[in-house]
């Protein structure tokens, strides 16, 4: 009896006992369907939230701001403070390996005009690094360039909300605007990111209420000083968070003659903590999921066990004949175990079909309710479900297979003689 014949025999036994088999397989089908659907659901929702966190652009980001030094020595100490400077960013970039990108920011509020429209907006002067560092997305035109910074160019990129307020639906790229009394040319417009509804308010409006200009133009035409308001820093990975933070702190202290006139806002850690919370929710869901799956698979397994025992008893004569013509115990054991796994794997496949259907139904239902959610079918869930089913087949097929293999051929044949 080779493997293929045993599989065929398992399938034949499903075919010839349709009702019994479907009752048996019910538990396995439900268990596997639950695994597939729930894994897809949890994975899909969690995946979407991870994506949102990633899009947010604040992962691995630190902000370094100016701070009035608090110290008992008072005035003298305050005088020693030189504040954040453009040079600080150069030094940090050179000395701290963990830094992926850094930009100095000069920020100020000005009235911005275009034609007859005007509004107040935050003027955000930075280097080109700032755009990718905070993961901004470009709608039209271009981002700022290094050349713009070198030439103190009077060019601006508009946040999407500012653009709509000043230009409405009309084209903005190439148009002139007035920032305070200074003429600037619009070279690009940002695009707002799509966040899922469950992510809620992302706070990205703030980014789109701004006008972005080169750091140099900001110093010369807007603030009129070389003082920097803050730095935005992106570290290479969240593993670098602690060391990166410490190195930045140490380097700045050294550059500022040990005067702590700055503070580091650890946004990255807040994001990390929020992600961990989502991770905890996911693992709670996974716990519930595996409980449901385990219970229904156990129920299915016990059903399988009883059917297999009945099957062995019905086939005593077959087992006896096989042994009489030379089947070893091992061959009988193998045959019945493979039959068991075939039946349970068949149930697993049906369960996977059902689970995939349920997953599609969840996407469909959510979309009917106006939620823009797509729940992808989890490949891992399918694999998990199938291995569960096969595991149940092996576990609960073991006893009937051993029972069959240990039968005395004389008794097995003469039972029906």
């Amino acid at each position: 009896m080779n493997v293929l014949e045993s599989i065929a025999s398992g399938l034949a036994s499903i075919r010839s006992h349709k009702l019994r088999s479907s009752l048996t397989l019910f538990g396995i089908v439900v268990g596997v369907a639950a695994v597939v659907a729930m894994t897809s659901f949890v994975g899909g929702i969690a995946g979407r939230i991870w994506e949102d966190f990633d899009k947010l652009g604040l992962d691995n980001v630190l902000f370094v701001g100016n701070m009035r030094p608090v110290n008992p020595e008072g005035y003298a100490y305050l005088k020693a403070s030189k504040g954040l400077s453009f040079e600080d960013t150069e030094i940090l970039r050179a000395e701290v390996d963990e830094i992926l990108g850094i930009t100095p920011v000069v920020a100020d509020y000005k009235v911005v005009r275009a034609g007859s429209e005007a509004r107040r907006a935050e003027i955000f002067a930075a280097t080109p690094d700032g755009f990718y560092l905070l993961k901004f997305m470009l709608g039209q035109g271009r981002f700022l360039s290094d050349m713009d910074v070198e030439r103190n160019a009077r060019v601006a990129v508009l946040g999407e909300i500012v653009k709509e307020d000043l230009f409405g639906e009309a084209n903005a790229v190439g148009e002139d605007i007035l920032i305070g009394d200074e003429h600037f040319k619009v070279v690009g417009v940002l695009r707002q990111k799509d966040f899922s509804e469950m992510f809620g308010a992302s706070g990205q409006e703030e980014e789109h209420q701004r006008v972005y200009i080169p750091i140099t133009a900001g110093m010369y035409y807007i603030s009129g000083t070389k003082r920097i308001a803050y730095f935005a820093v992106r570290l290479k990975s969240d593993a670098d968070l602690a060391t990166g933070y410490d190195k930045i702190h140490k380097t700045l202290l050294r550059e500022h003659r040990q005067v702590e006139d700055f503070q580091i806002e650890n946004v990255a850690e807040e994001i990390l903590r929020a992600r961990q919370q989502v991770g905890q929710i996911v693992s709670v869901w996974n716990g519930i999921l595996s409980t449901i799956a385990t219970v229904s698979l156990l129920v299915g397994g016990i059903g399988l066990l009883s059917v297999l025992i009945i099957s062995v008893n019905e086939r005593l004569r077959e087992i006896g004949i096989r042994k009489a013509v030379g089947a070893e115990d091992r061959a009988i054991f193998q045959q019945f175990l493979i039959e068991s796994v075939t039946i349970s794997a068949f149930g697993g496949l049906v369960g996977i079909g059902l689970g995939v259907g349920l997953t599609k139904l969840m996407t469909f239902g959510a979309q009917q309710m106006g939620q823009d959610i797509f729940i992808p079918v989890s490949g891992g869930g399918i694999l998990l479900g199938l291995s569960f089913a096969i595991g149940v087949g092996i576990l609960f097929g073991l006893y009937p297979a051993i029972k069959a293999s240990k039968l005395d051929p004389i008794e097995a044949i003469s039972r029906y003689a």
Partner: protein
Amino acid sequence: MLIRTEELTKSYDLGAAEVRALRGVTFGIEEGEYVAIMGPSGSGKSTLMHILGCLDTPSTGRYFLNGTEVSELHGRELARVRNKEIGFVFQNFNLLPRVDLVANVALPLVYHGGMNRAERRKQAVRALESVGLGHRLKHRPNELSGGERQRASIARALVTEPSILLADEPTGNLDQKTGREIMGILDELSKAGKTVILVTHDSNVAAHARRTVEIEDGTIAREGRA
């Protein structure tokens, strides 16, 4: 000597009583012999047949088959001896009901090893043709007459070309005419040189053999030659 037994005994422990089915059987069978083992039910002849067929092992005593002491063997080795050395023909045919005759006859070859499916089927078809069932290859046992089923069972016993054909009441479930046909096939096989052992209580069947061994109360009561 193809078969040699020395003081075979078999006892069953049934709790309160010990049943002694065989009480010391010593005999031999030469290659090519046609032997009938006779005896009423309860005489121990079935137990002897099971031991000769390697389906059972003796409690004491020795059994040599083809030079091997099979009374020393267990489990796997015994299964291999059954497969290679012995062809069973049962009273109630014992064919698998759910598969066709070719698959039934090929069954011993499945456990023989070293043969693919096509080769097994080819050899099974040849065995079926040799017993005149070439036209029934795709039929299932329940679509056949008793005589045809017993022929299929003989084909299955022959397919591995065993040393011994062991037939247990081969005509017990057949009418007289069909029974004679089946005995005719066994006679032919014997004539062709096969070692055939009949186990029967029917003296008409036993009359086909050239030698009879009568078992009573677990021992050999009489031996005779035709």
